[in-house]
């Protein structure tokens, strides 16, 4: 066994960036069966929806989720409709699982102490963990959008798409709009991820942090429905969640995208700072 160099490493070699750890984090996250199960469940939403519409007779206009009646006319609408359906519950649910698991999951397994002794560094680990959750926020809406576009193309005719403003765009442009909507939802979920990251530093029980994150998203949406608390509405992370309709106009109205991004950045800053304050001083006893 080569072990002669044990004795002295006076000046440690140059430290690498966090990239190997990030790569490892992403590989652990996306090779995990639970992540696959959640992504498959998300992909099942547009598939089930499209099949249901296909086998049933035409949906009367104005019933069911918005755009549902348009599906039969244009398969690309499956993606948008499925995203709309997933916004209130399915996407926050899966993001809650991933974000709530970040630190608490490692603590629950006991691997947190080994990562820290490696030493991952607490700040670096927190950043990598948040980056992992953000990556899931990118992938999850994308999976819904692409599964929707795919199944829609397979089951329904595809043609020029009529936007909310009445303009007609080509199918190619429509796919770009679909990806924009997915990107909008990615941004929308980043604030929730930061909340989940913070909650995850509070406990060694991952299920608790996951549930708390999901409850936070439900509470935020419920409060958003209460007219009595209207003053609070602009501060809720779910305030702009349904604002992506602006991306389906011609020309695109970027206002809600910008306001949403600003709001989410605020949540990232506040809850990122809270997570930092908590995690850097935390006694890791798990």
């Amino acid at each position: 066994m080569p072990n002669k160099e044990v004795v002295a490493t006076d000046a440690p070699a140059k430290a690498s960036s966090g990239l190997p750890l990030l790569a490892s984090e992403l590989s652990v996250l996306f090779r995990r069966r639970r992540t696959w199960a959640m992504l498959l469940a998300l992909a099942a939403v547009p598939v089930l929806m499209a099949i249901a519409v296909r086998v049933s007779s035409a949906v009367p206009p104005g019933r069911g989720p918005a755009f549902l009646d348009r599906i039969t006319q244009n398969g690309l609408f499956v993606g948008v409709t499925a995203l709309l359906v997933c916004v209130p519950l399915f996407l926050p649910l899966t993001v809650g699982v991933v974000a709530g698991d970040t630190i608490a999951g490692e603590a629950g397994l006991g691997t947190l102490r080994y990562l820290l002794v490696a030493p991952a560094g607490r700040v670096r680990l927190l950043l990598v963990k948040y980056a992992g959750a953000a990556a899931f926020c990118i992938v999850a809406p994308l999976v819904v959008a692409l599964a929707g576009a795919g199944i829609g193309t397979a089951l329904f005719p595809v043609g020029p798409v009529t936007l909310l403003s009445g303009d007609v765009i080509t199918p190619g442009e429509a796919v770009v709009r679909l990806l924009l909507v997915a990107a909008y939802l990615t941004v929308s979920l980043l604030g929730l991820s930061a909340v989940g990251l913070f909650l995850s530093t509070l406990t060694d029980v991952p299920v608790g942090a996951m549930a708390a994150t999901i409850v936070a998203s439900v509470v935020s949406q419920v409060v958003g429905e209460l007219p009595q608390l209207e003053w609070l509405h602009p501060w809720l992370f779910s305030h702009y969640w349904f604002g992506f309709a602006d991306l389906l106009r011609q020309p695109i109205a970027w206002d809600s995208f910008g306001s949403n991004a600003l709001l989410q950045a605020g949540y990232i800053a506040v809850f990122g700072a809270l997570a930092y304050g908590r995690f850097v001083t935390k006694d890791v006893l798990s």
Partner: protein
Amino acid sequence: MTVAGRSAELAIETRGLSKRFGHQLAVDGVNLAVPRGSVFGFLGPNGSGKTTTIRMMLGLAGATRGSVSVLGLEMPERFHDVLPRVGALVEGPAFYPFLSGAANLRRLDAADPYAVQSTRRARVEAALERVGLTHAAGKKVRAYSLGMKQRLGIANALLSPRELLVLDEPTNGLDPQGTREVRSLVRSLAADGATVFVSSHLLAEVEQICTHAAVMSAGRLVAQGTLAELRDEGKVRIRLVTPDAGLAEGVFARLGMTPMGGRSNGALVYGDSRRAGDTGTAGDAGQLGDTGQLGDAGQSGVAVEPEAVVAAMVAAGVRVRGFAVEQGSLEDRFVALTGEGFDIAQ
């Protein structure tokens, strides 16, 4: 006060290290001094504060009072410079059950910013080979037995060349074969120049592999020194088998020896209460801190020579049927320091 020169020779040094959880003082003013190159046994019953002390050494938990330096650098401030040179097994192994053994090690190695990426695979393979897990490298850790996880945990500590290994209960869950392997592994690591800090409640294990040891009891460090010092060699016991018990007791008393442990199996057990090391604290007072009760590794200079005891017995007409000189064992010392009972302190 710590002299700078000595600090450099210490792999681990704690000064008044204390940790309070709520109202309970889990670690209370511990002054550890682990010399570089030693194989240091960290003994104590369950719940005596061993693992909490280790957590503070590794920067996992903050000290309520006191300070720690590891490899001459303050922890946890210098963790970035210290921890890459330290391999650790803390409170049992912990891995991702859904990853293979090798993937687990690659993951933890990726967390070390100083680990060289290009040699990762080779180092993981070498570490797995060293603990005899090559054949199970591709198996999910979920399917590992406790002993295999323990081996994987040790492999993780050996991923990079280390100057210090902190192994918390390394033989937990291992079969006798595995225990032997760990012992020889620890010896080979020490032979390569690494300092090995082994916490254990298994005295036999510590006695076989360690050069130094410390004993914790109820959060306090109650003894520390070389193994020879701890065995308390000054305290020699004499076991005498005789039908003339009364006569022999008189001779013992004249020699200034006191009964120890009473009669066992019809034999008289006596020791010399005037221990060689009673003059003061053991060896290096500064290094040993508040562990004054530790006896010096005294030769039986002041004590009565065993042959003199036999001569006195024979002269007094005691029929000596059996005579044995017994060294104090680490176990005796351990029990004397931490108490007999099974109750967990505190």
